[in-house]
């Protein structure tokens, strides 16, 4: 996981062509009228205009990026995840199967709870939208709706949350088949909104203090099931008398 990653943010485009023009024209107009006034208010207006002009010229809006939103023609969700705000998770694992196989398994969202223990269910609501429910410590459940933003067979799946979910997030999974080998690198990028309130609290317990760790554990389990048909475990195995310390540690885990 790389926190505070500024990944590509300054150089990416997340605003549509029309909005860029509107932004630039409005910005230029505000600068001109603000400078004419030669007052504090005028200076502020000019400064806001400069921000709009920059936004239009660069095609990048930090506000949009922070919620993983992109209306750009290029429409690459890898860029939508590149905002300065939020917590970023960037994890990868190599799976000993061709990209087409791994992609197909991942694309079947409704089966993902078999791989990721903290997911309770994933239900399709229409062609590109899914309702997700997760369960964690304390049996508390949180839910969100997500839509697929982008999908390139055998290469990429990207999504973001919609409506008013408990969790505002966006993510992508990239599948890269190794050259000359039958295995596939799976890169997960996930960003979620630290806006405060309910969503932050929910995400905090869902991911713990190290959000990368849960994603990493999920990926490892996903890999083990694909490669071996089962996830390694010792839960429920024979053991001698445990110490009180052992149970104390367990309840915190």
């Amino acid at each position, binding site marked *: 996981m790389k926190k505070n990653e500024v990944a590509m943010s300054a150089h990416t485009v997340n605003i549509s062509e029309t909005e860029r023009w509107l932004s630039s024209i409005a910005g230029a107009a505000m600068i001109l009228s603000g400078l004419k006034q030669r007052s504090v208010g005028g200076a502020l207006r000019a400064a806001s205009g400069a921000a709009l002009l920059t936004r239009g010229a660069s095609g990048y809006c930090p506000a949009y990026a922070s919620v993983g939103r992109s209306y750009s023609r290029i429409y690459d969700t890898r860029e939508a995840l590149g905002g300065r705000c939020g917590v970023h998770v960037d994890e990868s694992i190599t799976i000993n199967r061709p990209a087409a196989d791994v992609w197909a398994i991942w694309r079947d969202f409704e089966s993902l709870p078999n791989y990721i223990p903290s997911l309770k269910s994933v239900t399709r609501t229409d062609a590109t939208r899914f309702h997700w429910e997760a369960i964690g410590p304390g049996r508390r459940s949180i839910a969100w709706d997500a839509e697929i933003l982008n999908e390139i067979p055998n290469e990429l799946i990207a999504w973001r949350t919609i409506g008013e979910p408990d969790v505002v997030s966006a993510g992508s999974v990239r599948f890269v088949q190794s050259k000359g080998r039958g295995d596939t690198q799976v890169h997960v990028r996930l960003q979620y909104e630290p806006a405060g309130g309910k969503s932050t609290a929910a995400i905090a317990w869902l991911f713990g203090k190290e959000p990368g760790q849960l994603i990493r554990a999920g990926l490892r389990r996903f890999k083990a099931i694909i490669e*071996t048909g089962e*996830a*390694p475990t010792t839960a429920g195995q*024979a053991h001698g008398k445990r110490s009180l310390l052992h149970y104390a540690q367990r309840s915190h885990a």
Partner: protein
Amino acid sequence: MRALVWHGKNDVRVEQMPDPKILNPRDVILRVTTTAICGSDLHLVNGVIPSMQAGDILGHEFMGEVVEVGKENQKLKVGDRVVVPFTIACGGCFFCEKALWSLCDNSNPNAWMAEKLWGYSTSGLFGYSHLTGGYAGGQAEYVRVPYSDVGPLKIPASVTDEQVLFLSDILPTGYQAAENCDIQPGDTVAVWGCGPVGQMAIRSAFLLGAGRVIAIDNVCERLEMARDRNGAETIDFSHQDVFDRLKTITGGRGPDSCIDAVGLESHGGSFDAYVDKAKMALYLATDRPSVLRQAIHACRKGGVVSVPGVYGGFLDKVPFGAAFQKGLTFKMGQTHMMRYMQPLLERIERGELDPSFVITHRFPLARAAEAYDLFGRKQDGCIKVVMKPHDLVH
């Protein structure tokens, strides 16, 4: 069932507990017929391997009879007699496909712990701390064997338990140590440590064409076994300077390859060994590598240092300059068991090898704690202990 349970430094006990169950589709449950205490179990009992938990069942050298089979296991059936390798391998990952079995990507459920310490996780091991999976071990009446369609080797009725038990660890481990030396006909191989792995390495070095093997230890009966049973020349480090002696008897050139069959708790009488011991006692060091230092120093130019002895942490004062300047090659790691088990079984069946020569003591499992103490203190000429979990004789 009864099993030998770790409770802390120098505290192991035989306890009663519920029998193991099948937890995954490829598991089997084994009724353990013979098991052994390994030198590396002493690292656990001495408290130098982190991430042990009170209640853990020890034991990674065991064999037995299959009594229950998971529904996805196509290879084993009830009644099969098998030896189980101490490393657990899934058979489906990149590393298993390359026969790097001990580096399996999937078998350690605590991979995150190992990644923190070593960057990447290696395979799960039986009864060897939670860093390598926390799997319950085989010093027990019954044991669960995960991914059991990959590791366990079926054993014909024509050989006894004691002849094949050491296919579970020390024989392949000693053999891999010798193979890693890339022995050319007539080579001289020096072996530090004449415990069971050292003895297997000596025997294997001769099998692979070594002209001379020089064995180094300070325990009288172990040196005797190396000399009388296995044909090695010996150096007793409590009476002789190892480096000077090795240099002299190799005509000033040094051994072609050096095997460190001791690992992180070497007991050398040299100054650096005492410093290491003090640092370890104060938690200033994780490993005591005085044998490794000696092996690097003594090895001939362009030679191989092969390390079957276990290391776990960060080593101080390793003479890397000598290693670099002499152009040494290092080979090490846990044993890739399944490369060796079948061919070594065939050698045992043909009568070319009988590793049971290392056994000095036999105990019922009920007296396992006493056996650990005897083995740990090298009392009564103890070199290798085997135990019969279902033997009720006290």
